[in-house]
């Protein structure tokens, strides 16, 4: 076992996959000589060389398009978005090109790419460096969406994403990069975390909390606080947002009959709405309270710290909502 940061877990996963498979390459802005804006590809350029670690011009469209074209020719490209917010420039490549390719080719040509980058707020990053637009790709056919919360999952999910034959959008919460540490298996163990499987990070009886990314840590902190009040939360870490592991969610919902969904993106039209709808469709008879959501306000993430705190969900928000549900 190795004790690493969240960031280091992702770095090691990519490193080991590139060692394992010569078809894997990485492209992005400043990822070569500089080692990436956050240092995720530190040392890659020196080790793997300029053919496999490609410094790209500032064009997310081109970065993603290169991986798509290379994938059609048999490579496995990793496209780094310096901030995942900028994926909007490469939106068409993901949604209309990569996402549809397997279908358009009659199932002949898979597009195994990973579009990854730092997401989320709580670091004073403001408009272009704070967003969580996972719902866009959650809505898109042909694309998988992943967001880990712990180093072991980040490590195992990154490896699985690189090996997966579908386009994967991989959200790395920048708030977790260096704050969260944990142990990951040795390279020799060839450890992966299969996509599409949620993980219960804390068992409880009163309320099911479904979360992903940084919100898992918020939910766990809320659970710790509420334990003193006699309210027991079960915290599900989705890990993969799409495909959604409804089995785990439903099983927990049937146990607690009360569900709180926590996500960092604007509340309206978010992943929480879909989860809520599916629980209602598939386990309505098991509910003892309305399904509730804690999410960001329907607003941009402002720069000023107090405003950022106001817009984004907090541990307090989760505690209050859970109390309300417990009392319902």
């Amino acid at each position, binding site marked *: 076992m190795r004790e690493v940061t969240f960031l280091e877990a992702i770095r090691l996963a990519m490193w080991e996959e590139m060692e394992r498979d010569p078809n894997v390459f990485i492209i992005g802005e400043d990822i070569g000589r500089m080692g990436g804006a956050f240092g995720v590809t530190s040392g890659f350029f020196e080790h793997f060389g300029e053919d496999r670690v490609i410094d790209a011009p500032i064009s997310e469209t081109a970065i993603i398009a290169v991986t798509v074209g290379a994938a059609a020719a048999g490579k496995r490209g990793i496209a780094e978005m310096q901030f995942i917010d900028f994926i909007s420039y490469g939106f068409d490549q993901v949604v209309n090109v990569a996402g549809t390719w397997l279908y358009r080719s009659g199932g002949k040509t898979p597009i195994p790419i990973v579009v990854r980058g730092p997401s989320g707020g709580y670091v004073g990053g403001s408009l272009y460096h704070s967003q969580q637009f996972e719902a866009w790709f959650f809505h898109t056919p042909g694309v998988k969406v992943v967001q880990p919360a712990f180093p072991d999952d980040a490590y195992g999910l990154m490896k699985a994403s690189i090996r997966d034959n579908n386009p994967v959008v991989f959200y790395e919460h920048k708030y977790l990069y260096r704050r969260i540490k944990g142990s990951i298996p040795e390279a020799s163990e060839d450890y992966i975390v299969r996509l599409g499987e949620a993980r219960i990070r804390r068992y409880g009886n009163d309320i099911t909390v479904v979360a992903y990314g940084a919100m898992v840590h918020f939910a766990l902190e809320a659970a710790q606080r509420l334990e003193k009040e006699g309210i027991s939360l079960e915290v599900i870490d989705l890990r993969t947002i799409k495909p959604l592991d409804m089995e785990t969610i439903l099983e927990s919902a049937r146990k607690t*009959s009360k569900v709180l969904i926590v996500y960092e993106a604007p509340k309206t039209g978010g992943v929480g709405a879909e989860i809520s709808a599916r629980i209602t469709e598939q386990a309505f*008879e*098991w*509910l*003892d*309270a*309305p399904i509730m959501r804690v999410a960001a306000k329907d607003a941009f993430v402002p720069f000023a710290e107090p405003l950022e705190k106001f817009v984004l969900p907090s541990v307090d928000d989760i505690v209050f909502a859970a109390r*309300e549900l417990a*009392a319902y």
Partner: protein
Amino acid sequence: MAVAVIMPELGESIVEGTIVRWLKQEGDSVQEDEPIVEIMTDKVNTELPAPASGVLQRILAPANATVTVGQELALIASASEAAATPAEPAAPAPVSAPPPVEAVGFYGGAEEPAPVATPAPAAAAPSDGQSRTATGQPFISPVVSKIAREHGISHEELLTIPGTGTGGRVTRKDIEAYLAQRKAEPAPKPAPAPAPPPVAAPTPAPQPVAPREGEEIIPLVGMRKVIAEHLTKSYQTAVHVTTVIQVDVSKLVEFRERNKESFQQQYGVRLTYTPFFVKACTDALLEFPMMNATLQDDQIIVRHYVHMGVAVALGEKGEEGLIVPVIRDAHKKSLVDIARELEDIAKRARSKSISVAEVQGATFTLTNPGSYGALIGTPIINHPQTAILGTYAIVKQPIVIDDMIAIRPMMNLCLSYDHRLIDGMYAGRFLQRIKRAIESFEFFK
């Protein structure tokens, strides 16, 4: 043609009431003038007689529903009509229906028909703290409903389970605890064996509290229930604040001592302090009309007349509650008139021979905790009035007058007022006005 039972005007200020219980059920036959429903208003509970003989075809306002004056409460069909129509209750006829039911509309039927059984289960948003459906029935969540079904728990039995959820809702944990307890009991009780008393819409059954040793359980009913609800409403609505002022009542005490026998002889009425307070207060109210107002929605109803409510405790120890008879048009009455009327209504209040009209419409209330020695207090406003004045015990006290110490009978006047309408200075000036009237004793000018 069905005859509608209409919510009548039960008093001049009464605009709505609450259905306590239906004494007749749908399908029961009723005689004209036979009581069919019990209605609670701000002041009293009353039974409403059937407007016609026939069959109670349909109840439009279930128990606990709040109904406004003029609203339809039920439909009574003639016996022959009832026989002809199928038992299934017809949906309330919409206005546009070609064969119009005559009884549909006091308001022309445009009003929404009373929601009799609208299934509105998950309408309750927890943030609103609502856990009741539009009909006022407790909300049964899907999982509780499912567990009840699986364990053969009837709706009636379900309503007897103590609920710990919002608004007393039975939660999943409650029903599971109930089942576990039922299982633990050796012989499961035949659940709803004795026919439950016919209750129209199942009101939330009182949780059966078992009295422990040295305790007894008294159901909250009748006047106590009305008082409880009334005071709660007042306390939750008005922004209460109390201001206290001390009054030197030397002249008042002296006058009463000197005149009480002659007054009794001349007018046949016992001379007490209360008429003076009614009089002083009434005069002050005319000068400070906001004290005599009611805040209703976004409007302030200011009155330039005074109907003075005077609280009368009932029972030797005050254990039988309290009623507030009203001296109507107190501003037009002399001190003697007031004294005479006070004695009369207090006596009839205690003998419970007072009519609804006599306890309605007060614009201000006077209460006299001084009668049982209380020195100071914070009376609760008699909703929807704006203020209440408490007169407290007269006690001889050393006070400083012109830098000399004198012994004077002193009394506290405690005014509780709705701070939404009345600011502190206005209240202070109002009290000063009363103080001046009493201290200078300007009653017989």
